[in-house]
């Protein structure tokens, strides 16, 4: 529907010309051609139901240039607040491009530039989404990660966004494939450098084979006026498991817009999807978790828990759609979103959607919104805790059961520290 599209946006022919030749082989070229046509029609507008709460009007008005055309960006170090993870190989991207000099030596795991022989590219349910089409049209050099057996080292992707004099857009693309029974941990830190806004448009596709397991831990920290619109498409075969935790932090500077959209297709019996997350935002930050779980096969489980702490005039969104196909009997699907407001300024939009065609299923969703309990605050005050310390303790307590969903103890500790850091910065700011 043309009326629901924003046709005036910066990703037209001029953008394509500046992006240069992106040819990567016949198959990818064919995908790009379709995608370019798609983008030519426009970006989703405010009347588009999926994008109602996260309108792209502001983004569409920024004169982004492709990162490849920005010759005044030179990132020589990884920002010091990006954590180091134990037993992980760090792979650094700047504006979507792999930086061997900033990365660990890659060994013991199969990470390659994405190529035309990666037939799995564009095979997840996300392929037709507009922001995925934008990525497909313009991704410069993607990464293909394939896992066999148990991978003892995690892959830690650090994606740094940085603009020069002009705002840049970039489109990181990652494809993860697994052999049956493989186990892989993928950690991602998405950060930005202050300056002009930038637009990160990452797309990650994860194909989980029978009995394979992928653990994914993502942090998006937007401290400037950036746009981070990320889409993940996952398919899970029989008895496979996808366990993800997404953290969104932002607000001490700027007014970033973040959307973390995750689609998981449960294709095999006995598969599991654990999709959890937390966000802590302030200032004018907008943070959106959008999830779509498609239960195509039965006897499978999907569990989601998202918790948000909102300060300033920030805005949170949770859209959770669960579809259970007619023959996906004995599906167990649960979702929960809880928001905690630290001031009277923030707002949230929550939209659970259960579309259930099977009859023998268990589905549940819940959503709550509230502020700190004055009885709790008085109790802590009566034990000598100053108001800021009391609030920090209660906020950490509020987020605790979400963070507990992080299976890896080390990652849990690092993410906990990042949340504590956010709270301390907030304390200093107020």
């Amino acid at each position, binding site marked *: 529907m043309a009326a629901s599209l924003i046709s005036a946006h910066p990703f037209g022919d001029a953008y394509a010309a500046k992006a240069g030749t992106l040819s990567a082989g016949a198959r990818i070229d064919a995908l790009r051609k379709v995608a370019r046509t798609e983008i030519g029609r426009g970006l989703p507008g405010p009347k588009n139901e999926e994008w109602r709460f996260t309108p792209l009007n502001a983004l569409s008005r920024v004169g982004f240039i492709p990162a490849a055309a920005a010759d005044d960006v030179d990132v020589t170090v990884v920002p010091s607040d990006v954590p180091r993870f134990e037993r992980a190989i760090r792979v650094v991207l700047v504006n979507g491009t792999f930086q061997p000099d900033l990365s660990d030596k890659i060994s013991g795991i199969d990470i390659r530039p994405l190529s035309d022989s990666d037939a799995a590219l564009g095979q997840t349910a996300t392929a037709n989404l507009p922001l995925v089409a934008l990525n497909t049209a313009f991704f410069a050099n993607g990464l293909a990660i394939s896992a066999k057996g148990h991978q003892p080292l995690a892959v830690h992707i650090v994606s740094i966004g940085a603009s020069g004099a002009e705002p840049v857009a970039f489109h990181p693309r990652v494809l993860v494939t697994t052999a049956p029974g493989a186990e892989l941990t993928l950690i991602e830190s998405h950060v930005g450098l202050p300056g002009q806004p930038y637009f990160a448009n990452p797309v990650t596709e994860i194909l989980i084979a029978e009995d394979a397991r992928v653990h994914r831990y993502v942090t998006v920290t937007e401290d400037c006026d950036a746009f981070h619109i990320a889409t993940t498409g996952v398919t899970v075969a029989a008895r496979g498991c996808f366990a993800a935790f997404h953290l969104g932090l932002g607000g001490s500077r700027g007014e970033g817009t973040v959307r973390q959209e995750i689609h998981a297709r449960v294709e095999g019996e006995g598969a599991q999807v654990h999709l959890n997350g937390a966000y802590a935002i302030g200032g004018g930050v907008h943070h959106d978790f959008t999830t779509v779980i498609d239960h195509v096969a039965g006897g499978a489980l999907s569990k989601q828990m998202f918790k948000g702490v909102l300060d300033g005039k920030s805005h949170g969104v949770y859209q959770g759609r669960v579809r259970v196909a007619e023959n996906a009997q004995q599906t167990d699907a649960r979702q929960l979103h809880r928001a905690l407001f630290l001031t009277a300024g923030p707002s949230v939009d929550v939209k659970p959607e259960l579309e259930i065609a099977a009859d023998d299923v268990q589905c549940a969703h819940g959503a709550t919104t509230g502020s700190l*309990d*004055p*009885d*709790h605050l*008085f*109790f*802590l*005050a*009566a*034990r*000598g*805790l*100053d*108001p800021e*310390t*009391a609030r920090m*303790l*209660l906020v*950490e*307590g*509020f*987020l*605790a*059961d979400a963070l507990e969903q992080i299976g890896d103890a080390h990652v849990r500790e690092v993410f906990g520290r990042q949340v504590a850091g956010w709270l301390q910065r907030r304390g200093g700011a107020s």
Partner: protein
Amino acid sequence: MPLLEIKNLHAKVGDKEILKGISLTINGGEVHAIMGPNGTGKSTLSNVIAGRDGYDITQGEVLLDGKNLLELSADARARAGVFLAFQYPVEIPGVSTSQFLKTAINAKRRQQGKPEIDAMEFLKLVKAKIKALGIADDMIRRPLNVGFSGGEKKRAEILQMTLLEPRLAVLDETDSGLDIDALKVVSEGVNALRSPDRGFLVITHYQRLLNYIVPDHVHVMTGGRIVASGGKELAETLEAEGYAKYQAA
């Protein structure tokens, strides 16, 4: 100088006057009991001493060691040595009891210019105290008061009091919801803290608690006023005769 002096204290909630001129003096080492029927203003008095919001103090003074408590925030009063053991301790999900205890101990230490307590010292201290109070080891790893029985919650309050070593402890119906064994343990915990440089205000509806925590002075409170004061034998008279004669007056 008395440890605590309450002089002609009047407090309102909205338009309703609840405390109608309370005066009370507690010296170091003394245990005072306040007894009274439900709805008489006992919890209001303890909340006003501890600095809870929502009360309009229209007259009177509360002095701790001669210092005006009413001008301090609740947390500053606590750090100055006021401890309120709650009638209904709140459950705080996600905050482990030990994390809370450590934060509370450190708030006090910071006030005294001391460094934060180290992890080993903290564990040793807490282990010793919970043993004396008959608290299970795993309780301190659980979220504060969440899923605790009535008795466990009250023991947790006494544990906090023991660790924070207050100058003035106000116990608001600490006996409510306790079976006799828990009542004995809690009372022993309180008695162990009696000392010349500490004062207690023990609020109760029943005389039973005062068999275990024997007070130096007993006050009867009805309708927002202290209507009679005496020694520990006053509690026994009340138990036998009830509050009727004071309420009628």
